[in-house]
């Protein structure tokens, strides 16, 4: 294993550990949908509860903590490649600082996205409590986005790891800016997928896990041309399939499989 591979393995290990911590906390304190809990809080069936009442049950601080935990659990495993880029392009004594700044930039982008997505979530919880329709509509939207060239554009930009300054404030700005930019392309890629588990009244955690697998899987693929296509689990499913069934291969002189 080369020095670079060892560094990648260390970063991947740390990312998975951090994600596991996030998942552990989330599983220890299971998520309750605002729509569902509001009904428990006394909303009469068929009435229109106020946003204030909903926020009383789910204070913004609690929603923010939950959002950050979701980000740590779901997103950190997708960050191995950009973190390795920051690690390798920074002075050794600045690596930790640069990685923290990257994380701040990345997290800031996602927290802003969280404000928007959580607001949508709350409004839908108020207007259609306990309804499956918002989640179903989000799933349809996510499927459409998943197949679109726009999604591919965001994924491609996420693979673009550009130059980073190394000295002083310029290095800080570069790491922060890289995190912010990477976060924005990541939001462009994942926003619709993230909405689905948020809007589910039941099965939220299971949906989160499924979306995490999908997001990790789609980052295993390299950049591609922009076109409509079903994307996400291709490489991961092929990896699983090839582990189960070795690649067909023969030497030329041993005879060939007939072309399909």
């Amino acid at each position, binding site marked *: 294993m080369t020095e670079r*591979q060892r560094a990648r393995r260390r970063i991947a290990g740390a990312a998975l550990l951090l994600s596991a911590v996030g998942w552990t906390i989330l599983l220890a304190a299971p998520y309750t949908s605002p729509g569902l809990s509001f009904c428990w809080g006394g909303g009469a069936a068929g009435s229109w509860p106020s946003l204030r009442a909903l926020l009383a049950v789910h204070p913004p601080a609690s929603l923010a903590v939950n959002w950050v935990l979701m980000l740590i659990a779901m997103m950190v495993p997708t960050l191995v490649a950009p973190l390795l880029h920051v690690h390798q*392009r920074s*002075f050794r004594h600045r690596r930790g600082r640069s990685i923290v700044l990257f994380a701040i930039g990345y997290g800031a982008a996602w927290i802003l996205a969280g404000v928007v997505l959580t607001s949508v979530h709350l409004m839908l919880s108020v207007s259609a409590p306990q309804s499956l329709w918002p989640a179903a509509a989000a799933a349809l939207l996510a499927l459409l986005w998943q197949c679109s060239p726009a999604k591919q554009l965001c994924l491609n930009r996420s693979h673009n790891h550009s130059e980073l300054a*190394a000295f002083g404030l310029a*290095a800080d700005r570069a790491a922060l800016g890289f995190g912010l930019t990477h976060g924005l392309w990541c939001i462009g890629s994942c926003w619709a997928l993230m909405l689905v588990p948020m809007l589910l009244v039941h099965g939220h955690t299971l949906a989160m896990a499924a979306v995490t697998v999908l997001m990790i899987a789609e980052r295993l693929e390299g*950049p591609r041309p922009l076109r409509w296509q079903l994307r996400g689990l291709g490489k991961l499913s092929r990896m699983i399939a090839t582990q189960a069934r070795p690649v067909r*291969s023969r030497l030329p*002189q041993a005879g060939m499989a007939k072309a399909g």
Partner: protein
Amino acid sequence: MASYIRSNAWNTGGTFDNPDLLWYAKGVGAMMTRPLNDRNSWWFFAAIHGQYLPGTSNKQPGFPGWQAIPAAPAVPTRPLPTQPDMDTFWDQCQHQSWYFPPWHRGYLIALEGQIRKAVIALGGPSNWALPYWNYLGSDNQYEIPPAFTQPTLPDGKTPNPLFVNARYGPNNDGNIFIPVPPVSLACMSNTVYTGSNAATPRPGFGGPQTGFSHDGAVSGNLESNPHNQVHVDVGGNSPDGTIWGLMSDPGIAALDPVFYLHHANIDRMWALWNVSGNSNPNASNWLSGPAAAGERAFVMPMADGSAWVYTPQEVDDLKKTNYTYDDLPTTANSAAASQTLAIRLQKLGAPTMAGQPPEPSKDTATESELVGTHDGALDIRSSGARAQVRLDPGVRAKLSNSLKAASLESPPDRAYLQLENVRGTRDAQKLQVFVNEHLAGTVALFGLRRASLRDHSHGGSGLTFELDITSLIDTLYVENALAADTLDVKILPSNAVDAEAPISVGRVSVYREKHE
């Protein structure tokens, strides 16, 4: 026992008096008569390496789109094969990757079989084998074999299928030769396939560990020189600068028949490197190829109509194939990694040569660390570019201390100059890089254009070039000049650079690499 022996294209003067070349020409001609959508056609095979065909996601509005390539050869752009055929076979070439040598070996085996079948059908020898162009051989072998420059076959009227219009050479004047140096056999003294040690600068002889890598970032040492350099030297730019030679760009390179003779030589160098006692990777992800990790398989259309799916493990030794080369030694000539280290230690004034040298084939790098950078982008124009690489005093001291304490058991650091995120619009260009006015190396920009495309397989990150400046840093240390705060880096392009589209370098940096 190999059934086929690949021989030197320069036998009998590299003319059509060499039957290997005459029958190659006839075989290529036969493949060129087949339509684009025929898996056995010349055009289909070129597209296996890479393509810019209208109607595909790689299409280009003008040159190097295949519709804009000047004849000869007259390149067809219709009919396209089925989508499954294109998805299975096309755009496979592996570059900037440890799969570079084995993928191209399988590609040559398939092409050779196709040509041999055509040769036999035309009444030629049944043991025909692909010749190689050893441009690093003696005498005038640095010149392209003359058979490739004749407009007709020996009958004086049949157009020569080996003749290509868009082949311009290193001086852009149609004179095709390989400048030696900078093209060299330096990689043959490496002893590690992937990694580095005293005799091997990173990323190693065969290339960096990657997945399926149609475009990558950093070329292996064999790929970097001679492979990339020969591509750019043969292709060159047209005299008016409007287009470039086929060989200069991976998406059109395999349309030029000399491509396969160049790669036969690269393949021969890999075989020679192995015969010299050097080992290929034994990691399962190299042996099994990218398909085992859920990526595309290496697959070739064979002359009998079959599709051959292969892995590096099946082609990593010529004994597993049906061919060999006419000049491979039969006994191992062990590489002198320990000698390389000893010479370096002597230069550094190491007090003692006692101790046990490291295992020659071992990757001994333990960590890599940034020493200094020139922050900010750098544009390379026709006049070149200059950058001051500012060194971090603390890391520079570590580097100096490593050189000061060097011994067989404590190998000194290696040092690299990196040109990171290099982007541009034309591959037919070489860059000479100087550090403090000493030549640090020459890099060829083969693959640059595609690596710079944002929605192509490299995401627009461009190429990264790593130049081994270990010897240069040693000299600075010995001359007490390593204490300077900066290194002066000068970059000179081999050709004029389009003023509207300069080559950009994201960052110039220096790294130290610690070894055990």
